Structure formats: C-alpha cells, structure tokens
C-alpha cells in the first residue's frame, strides 16, 4: 500500500465560532496527537469572527510547524465588505506560507503567485483546472458535491498538470453560504448586531423539519449538512483515482482520534471495518453520509463493497 502511504491527511479550517481558548486547546492536541500532514488555518465563514482568533495565529502556526505539520492559510468564502476585501488583500500578500483561496477576489489579488484553490472556488472540471493551473494554482480542493465519476476525471487532469488534489472525507458538508446570518436571524438579530450567538453551537445549530427529521445545521451565514460526510470506505478508490489529499473537517468530536482512524486505515494497519467502527464510536449519534460521492442525494449512506 505504498501509494496510500503517500496520501496526505489534512485538517480543514474550523468552520465554527469556537472560542480562542477552545481553539488553542484544539490545535495543541492536533499538534501532539493527530497524524495529519497539513493543517488549514483561518476564518472562512464570517469576517466578524476573525479578530477573536487572529492574535493566536502566529503561536498556533509555530506550534503546528514544530510538530511537523504544514500550515496553509485559508481565505474567506465571501468577500463583499471593505474589511473582507482588506483581509483578502492581506492574505494574498502572504509570503512564506501557502494560502488557499476561496473567492475570486483572492485570485485577482494573488495574480500568478502560487496558491491553492479551496472548496468554495467551484473548480468542477478539467477546463477550469487547466485555466487555474495556468494562473499559478498548485493544488485544488474539489467541491463537496462532486460525484466519483467527475472526481476521477478532475483528479487526473490536475495530476497531469502537477497539481495536488484534495477531497473532503470527513465532517459536515458545506451546503450553502449566504449574505444573511441565520444564527442571528434565529435569535431575532441581524448580522450587524449578532452578539456572536453562533458561539453557542460548536457543532452548528440543528434544524429539523416539521415532521421532526434532523436535516441541516446552521453556522452563521453557512448552511451545513446534518450528517457527517464519511468517505473512509471510499478512500481506496479516491486514492486510486488520483486524489492526493484527504480533508477532515473539524467537528466537536475527538478529531485526533478521527485522524488516527483514517491514517491507520490508509496505512493498512487497521481493517476498514474496524476503522469505521472506531469512527462510529467517536461520533456518537450523528449520522454518516456519502451520497454526493455516489451521485445520490447527499444525505444518503450508500453501502460500499469496500466495507465488506
């Protein structure tokens, strides 16, 4: 399984408004215990949250790098206001660390200097990959709703151009972003006077349908899936199709243990069924899904031959 051992595990940016202290503890544990190769840092969802954790950023970077992790700085997904445009401009001026761009405003600011493309960049196909590669992209994280057939073609195209290819394999799927804050709305507030109510929901605010089925999670301006995406059973095919990086999205569970389960399965040290059982234990009652990957409704869990 030499190929799999080359496959990198990454930790995506924290989507939620975790307190500065929670983040410090979280990344300390990641540095010490999580077998991830690369860690994405930075506020992607809401520009109002950034000031809360920016003071710790350099310490966190240092801590992670000391533990042998590569750190990449992720940009905002939505750029509209002056402070957001400024934040993007500053991020794109970064030297020394890689950056991941999630909005076309960043492509403008970055020019042809090297950069990664985040999942909000809507890189769906080989034509767009070829265009982006010509503009300095070195790595692409594909949109979470892409099915295996498209991932395979896109990954091959990206590899042929020397780009890294990343797919989210764990955590809630990002389903939508908006200019409106739904956390604020739920509490009778607006985005400008939100009171940071989103901090109360470290794994998102659950929405249930009128017939009481859990369906979505609200995270500020973002809408996420209720289920955690779990592509552990599909990792072998992902790797065979040319995907080089597997992304774990931080959820309010033991992420070091989640990473260990994925790493052990990738390295062949743990049977897939055992790794899957371990993931199940770590995630409590949260349902798992892989529908997008199989070209079906995203919330579905499609049984895979690989789990047998």
């Amino acid at each position, binding site marked *: 399984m030499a190929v799999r051992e080359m496959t990198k595990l990454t930790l995506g940016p924290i989507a939620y408004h975790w307190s500065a202290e929670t983040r410090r503890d979280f990344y300390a544990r990641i540095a010490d215990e999580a077998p991830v190769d690369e860690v994405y840092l930075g506020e992607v969802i809401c520009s109002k949250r950034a000031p809360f954790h920016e003071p710790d950023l350099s310490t966190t970077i240092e801590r992670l790098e000391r533990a042998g992790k590569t750190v990449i700085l992720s940009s905002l*997904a*939505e*750029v*509209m206001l002056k402070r*957001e*445009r400024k934040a*993007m401009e500053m991020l794109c001026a970064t030297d020394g660390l890689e950056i991941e761009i999630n*909005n*076309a405003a960043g*492509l*403008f600011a970055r020019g042809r200097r090297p950069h990664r493309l985040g999942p909000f960049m*809507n890189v*769906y*196909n*080989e*034509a*767009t*990959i070829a*265009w*982006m590669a010509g*503009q300095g992209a070195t790595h692409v994280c594909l*949109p979470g*709703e*892409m*099915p295996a*057939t*498209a*991932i*395979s073609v*896109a990954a091959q195209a990206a590899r042929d151009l020397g780009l890294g290819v990343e797919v989210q394999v764990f955590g809630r*799927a990002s*389903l*939508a*972003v*908006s*200019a*409106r804050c*739904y956390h604020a*709305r*739920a509490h009778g507030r*607006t985005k*400008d006077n939100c009171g940071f109510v989103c901090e109360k929901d470290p794994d998102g*605010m*659950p*929405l*249930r*349908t*009128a*017939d*009481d*089925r859990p*369906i*979505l999670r*609200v995270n500020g301006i973002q*809408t996420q*899936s209720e289920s955690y995406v779990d592509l552990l059973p599909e990792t072998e095919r992902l790797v065979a199709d040319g995907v080089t990086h597997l992304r774990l999205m931080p959820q309010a569970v033991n992420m070091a243990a989640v990473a260990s389960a994925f790493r052990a399965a990738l390295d062949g040290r743990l049977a897939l069924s055992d790794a899957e059982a371990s993931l199940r234990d770590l995630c409590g009652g949260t349902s798992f899904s892989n529908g*997008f990957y199989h070209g079906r*409704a*995203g*919330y579905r869990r499609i049984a895979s031959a690989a789990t047998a």
Partner: protein
Amino acid sequence: MNTAELICPAGTPAALRTAVDAGADAVYCGFQDATNARNFPGLNFTPEELRESVAYAHAKGAKVLLTLNTYPPAGKVDLWRQAADTGARLGIDAFIVADMGVADYVARSHRGIRLHLSVQAAASSPEAIRYYCEHFGVKRVVLPRILTIPEIREVRKEVPCEIETFIFGNHGLMVEGRCSLTNYLTGQSTNMDGVCSPASDVEYTRHDDGSISSQLAGFTIDCFGPDEKAGYPTICKGRYTAPHRSEGYYAFEEPVSLNLSRLLPELIDAGVNAFKIEGRQRSKSYVREVVSAFRHAVDDIRAGRSANVADLVALTEGQKQTQGAFETKKWR
C-alpha cells in the same frame, strides 16, 4: 443619465415573443439541458426554436442572451462547449456564463460575442469582477442580490464593465453558485444539473383541515394553513424547528419575492446599466404583466416622469414582496 436596459426571462418561444412584444430590450434563455440553471421539465429551447426566436427578437430590435450559467462536472465539459458553439451559430448576442473553464472557452472561441458574468459566479466585490473582466473580457456582471444601493454605487465606480441587477422575481437567499441544498436532498445538483427543487421530487399533500404540506424527496419543507399563502417548495424557504425555536420558523426566509419597482430611479442613479427580471420558469402571463409594468416604469424615468409601477404583488411568492438587501443592511 444612463438608460437601463430591461432584461427579461423566456422559458419557451411563446414567452420570448411575449417578452419582446411587451418591450424587453433583451431576453435571456437556455437550451433543454444541464447547461443552464433553469433546466426544468418541459421548459427551454431546442436549437431550431432558438433560431426562430433569435430571428423574431432581432426583427423587433431585441437582443437574445444565452444562459450557459451552470458548472460542468469533469468529463462533461463538451456539452457546454457545444451549446456555446450552437448559440454562436444561431446568432445570439451574448453568453451568460459562470464557470471559468466555460468562460475561457467562449472568450477564445467566440471572440466577437459579448460575455456576461452570471449571478451564479457570485462576483460580489470589485476585485472578483475585475478578475473576470481582465481575463475573459467580461462586458457585464450580474450582481448578487446582497448589496445595498450605496454599495452598488461603489462597485460601479471600481469596475470596467456594465452592471446588471435583479429588480423582480424569485429572491434567492443563498450565494448563487454556492448552494447544494437541492443536491443534498434529491441527488440532483443546482450547479451541475441546473435544477432547484426538481418537480420530480416534489409532492403536495392536502390534509383534512384544508392545509397543504409540501415535501421534497420525502422531507417536509413547509405546511401552509388553510388561509396561508404558499411559496415554492425550496429548502431555503422552508419552515423548521431549532432548539430554541420549537414553534417552527422560516430559518432562512419566508416565501417572498423581490420587487424593486420603487428603487428604480436610485438604481439608475447608482449606475446600474441593466435591470433583470427573474422567472424563466414562469408563464407568459407573468412575463407579459411584469415586463409591461417595468417597461412603462423605465420609459417614464427616462422621460423624466415619476414612475408608477403597476401592483405586481399577486404574482409574488407568498403574495409578499421585499426590497431585500437593496433597501437595508439589516436584511443580512
């Protein structure tokens, strides 16, 4: 003063002729496949229908804009390229695109035809817009429905292209081109397949008390009481419960449509070059009524008269209208 064009929807050739006759400066439409974001059953144009429609529009001085505003999944890009080639051959006046691969292809292969950036590209800052202008020669950007008028004015000053804003119709809540809510429940993608709450997955159930519930792929999206007005069965207009909202509430937005008829002079003053009416999925009755109303309004403003737009609330979702983000930042 700049004279704003009226850009009108056409889901069928009959709707296109209706829009042109009602005074559209341009109509936008798409083929019967995934290359456009209104890939709905029984809607849109065959190449032959588009050929006849272009002739009809051009004979009456109206332009035809072809929507190629979805994102081709890897392995299927040729469908979008062929659609662009067909459109060019049939004499359309501009392409409306979102995907960079598609934009790059059109910019290289059909240099003589104008390129408009779809709202599906979600370019909401001067920098993002300038990226598309500089690299693909985009001549006009359709702005997301999230900016206030003062913000639109600022954007206009900083971009080298025309800007188009929506003035009426469906009020999308999510950033366009970044929404996979439909795919999460149905397995059909808004970005890749051009669908939103596909009818094939929609079911309405009438209850004994006269209320009606709407379901998408078996998930209840909303339940309208006997006297309540209804909306589309879209996830972003659904009613849900949250831990502290056990009564059920519209977590994203209630059924409502955008109507900026009162803001037209301000929008023109802010430098908006074109007004877009949403609704390719609507009937030609809707097209006739809405286009006529806004034609008169824009003509009045051009002539220096105060515009008096007919009441269109009966055509709106939930029979309710909003000025959304255009009116106030508090919408956010």
